[in-house]
């Protein structure tokens, strides 16, 4: 019998005062998620041109997401640690399948048609990769030895490579980041960090010349000088910064944003939705959303810190940092700090798989949070 299994049965003598614990619900986290989702639906209604169709669909997906989250939370952390490799394997196989049977649009092949629904394996990998890495490192010496680092590199880079081929650079980088976050939190030695950093610097030219496609290069170039091509690639950046800037402190009012309502803003209900929020609710709205995100992330960090197992810590920390990265990258690209990569704003942007994957991650966080407290005994 494993030590953890033994410990789990020993409930704390005082009993569990948190009523959610038996249901494996972390109440503060749940409340904040509901708040963010509601805010998302409100903004989406306006961003979609007051189209209830999108709002209803998004709400339905959120309900499915909450269901997935509760479902995932019911399984013990140990279960997820043990079966991580299976999730990772399924993800990897479906990524390969995408390369051969995938469907997609605009020159990118990202979806698998399952008959009843369409499924984006790269989204699944955003959770599967950190889980796999966490599970792998959870059983190993900390800080990881060179061989382990190589193994983690392989676990991470293989799916990243497949996603790059789709091509979906944004998601690939996020998967890479999620894997990196785990090994970073696991205490990757400084010399590895430094060499990884140097490697990245060295890889940039290679990347530019051999990996990136023309439209991806264009996005980077556009970021540097959007005015060069006002009606082409620069249009998005110019219109989104205009939308954000013209919102001012207090915004133009809900559904009254001229940039978004008159279709100047591209992708207003998906990747660029923060611009709608910024235009209609102003900086106040942006700060309010950031506050909400900060509270949510704070709670996640608490969960990570309070986790009983190394796996739990690492996966919770990694998922939290990945979540933070989403927010950071999205808000940066829409405001013109980073090139436009297809990263949605979590819980606000319209989009199916992304929402469900997010909830999958939060389900695992809830599982960790509601893990029965082990009596801290140093044997």
């Amino acid at each position, binding site marked *: 019998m494993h030590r953890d299994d033994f410990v789990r049965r020993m409930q704390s003598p005082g009993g569990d005062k948190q009523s959610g614990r038996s249901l494996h619900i972390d109440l503060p986290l749940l409340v904040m998620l509901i708040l963010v989702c509601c805010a998302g639906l409100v903004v989406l209604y306006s961003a979609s041109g007051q189209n209830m169709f999108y709002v209803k669909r998004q709400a339905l997906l959120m309900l499915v997401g909450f269901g997935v989250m509760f479902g995932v939370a019911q399984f013990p952390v140990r279960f997820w640690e043990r079966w991580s490799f299976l999730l990772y394997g399924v993800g990897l196989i479906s990524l390969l399948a995408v390369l051969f049977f995938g469907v997609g649009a605009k020159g990118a092949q990202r979806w698998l048609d399952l008959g009843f629904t369409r499924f984006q394996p790269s989204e699944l990998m955003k959770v599967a990769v950190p889980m796999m890495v966490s599970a792998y490192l959870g059983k190993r010496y900390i800080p990881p030895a060179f061989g382990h680092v190589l193994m983690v590199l392989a676990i991470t880079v293989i799916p990243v490579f497949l996603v790059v081929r789709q091509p979906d650079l944004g998601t690939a980088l996020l998967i890479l980041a999620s894997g990196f976050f785990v090994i970073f939190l696991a*205490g990757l030695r400084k010399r590895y960090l430094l060499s990884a950093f140097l490697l990245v610097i060295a890889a940039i030219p290679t990347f530019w010349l051999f990996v990136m496609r023309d439209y991806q290069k264009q996005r980077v170039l556009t970021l540097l000088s959007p005015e060069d091509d006002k009606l082409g690639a620069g249009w998005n950046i110019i219109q989104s910064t205009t939308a954000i800037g*013209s919102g*001012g402190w207090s915004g133009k009012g809900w559904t009254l944003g001229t940039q978004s309502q008159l279709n100047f803003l591209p992708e207003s209900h998906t990747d660029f939705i923060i611009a709608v929020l910024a235009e209609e609710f102003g*900086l106040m709205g942006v700060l309010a959303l950031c506050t909400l995100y900060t509270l949510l992330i704070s709670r996640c960090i608490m969960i*990570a810190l309070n986790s009983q197992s190394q796996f739990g*810590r*690492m996966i919770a920390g990694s998922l939290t940092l990945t979540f933070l990265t989403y927010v950071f990258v999205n808000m*940066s690209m829409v405001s013109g700090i980073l090139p436009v990569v297809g990263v949605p704003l979590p819980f606000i942007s319209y989009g199916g798989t992304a929402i469900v994957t997010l909830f999958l991650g939060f389900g695992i966080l809830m599982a960790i949070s509601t893990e029965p407290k082990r009596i801290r005994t140093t044997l």
Partner: protein
Amino acid sequence: MIDDAAFSDPARERKIFVSRLLIAIFLAFVLGLVVIARYVDLQLTRYQDFATHADNNRMHVRPAPPSRGLIYDRNGELLADNRPTYILTIVRERSDNLSELLGTIGSLIEISDNDIKRFEKRLTRRKPYEQTPLKYDLTEQERGILAVNGYLLDGAEVSARLMRFYPDGELFGHAIGYVGRINERESQTIDGIKYSGTDSIGKIGLEKFYESQLLGEVGTEHVETNARGRVMRILDNRDPVPGSNLTLYLDSRLQRVAHKAFEGERGALVAIDVKTGGILAMVSAPGYDPNLFVSGISQKNYDSLLNSPDRPLFDRTIRGQYPPGSTIKPLFGLIGLHSKTISMDYVIDDPGYFIMEGIERPWRDHNSKRGGHGKGVDLAEAIIESCDVFFYKMSIKTGIDLLSRYSEQFGLGQITGIDMPGERSGIMPSRVWKKGARGQSWFNGDTINTSIGQGFMLATPLQLAVMTARIASRGDTVVPKLVKSINGIEVTRDEIAEPMNISEEHWDYIHKAMSDVVHSTRGTAKGISRGLSYKIAGKTGTAQVISINAEEEYDSSKIDKSQWDHALFVAFAPAEDPQIAIGLIVENGEHGSSAAAPIARMVMDMYMKSKAGSHQSSGGAN
């Protein structure tokens, strides 16, 4: 593989994890601050820039063109109206693929090659984001088709516009003129702001002369458009100020009569209100339909008008310069009397020709049978019977200098100052004129030719009417004008009235002689006196088109009609209290008495009739 966890140190693991997490949180905090700083920069520091940019994005100022002033005749009949028409316009900037758009439109409604050609021409000289017309006068059906397929037609828009319409067509064509599309030359001289949204301009006639009053003031419309350029709503507008309405002295009843009388003829008539100088009728025949020009005349129509031998586009009333012929005689007689170079008792003997010393070639009397008017012809008889020889002799006595100087006071040889563009001055020959124009000295022979309104002398029908009006008014400086009031406010013009100081005796004499032209049995225009309930004073005239040798007889049957003499007539009525004065010419009409005088009678009849009708009193009829 060995399970490392069995040997792991949970406390150390946790410690490392916490320190790493703190590093990550610190980095995230820094990056978060960068993002927040970016939003603060965009939304607070640069708010004004972006707010302006967003407004520029959505808001476009569209000019709201004013409606052009209307033109009425003196009785309030509408002569120039504005009618709503629908036009299809394209904003070049809003269309992703212009040729594709044109193709799509062409597949929906009929677009002629000509439409495309002109559209492309307009495209080259439009302002950015300006609506460029593609097709005018859309039918209801075409509008329907375009509306249904609107989603295919980004960049195209159907808009209603007021277009000039002349209800009477040809009737007032020359007087009122027409508006047409602003051409390249005009677009360089006009004030672009005043004309934004307006694509037509007065080209000729009153429409041109009163362009600034008729135009009105452009308004503005702030519209909100979406990214595709569709107008979503009108945010704010400043209404345009419509152009001023013109009320003319013209009387459409007289105009109709005159116009009808000229049917099939070439010629011109001008009728003036003697008291005011107001133009009562103004006809140049043949005319043209000004409506053809409003939305751009087709090359074919234009060519046929331009190349017609009857020259319908030529406004004979103010631009046609003809020898006045014998119509000048009353004036020259008056000048003779006034300058005392002849007296009322002065008589001549007329053998039918005149020989001047030193010149072999005799001057024939065109208006008498061989043998002349006989002995003892005085000025009155010379006017009544139109005796040339009397004027040959009298002009030598008076001299060209006096004739020329006084004639100018009656409006000859200079523009009359009518409120129409393009007026010609005619020629009142003088020594100075001949020296300047021909580089030659003046000869007595020139004076003799001038004395019967031939030779160098030329006058427009308008000048003849003005001259007659000044004679009729006993020397008032009658200045012709078409516009009576602008927006109900009477137009006043400073009239430089130089008193002529011609004695009443002389006026009476000339008026009596002119009256006898119509009313005496020997008068050249006695034909029109039948059944006349009022008195007309007039003078017939004939102007040679080709010169005939003195020995030859003019015989119309031997020459082409285009070379027949022009028939002229000047008249005023009622003779004892002149109100209307007329100058008219019928090209190649041969004789003033038969071709021209009856037209004057018809117009005057209508004038007297309408006068009696409008006053409900005894009026002019007795």
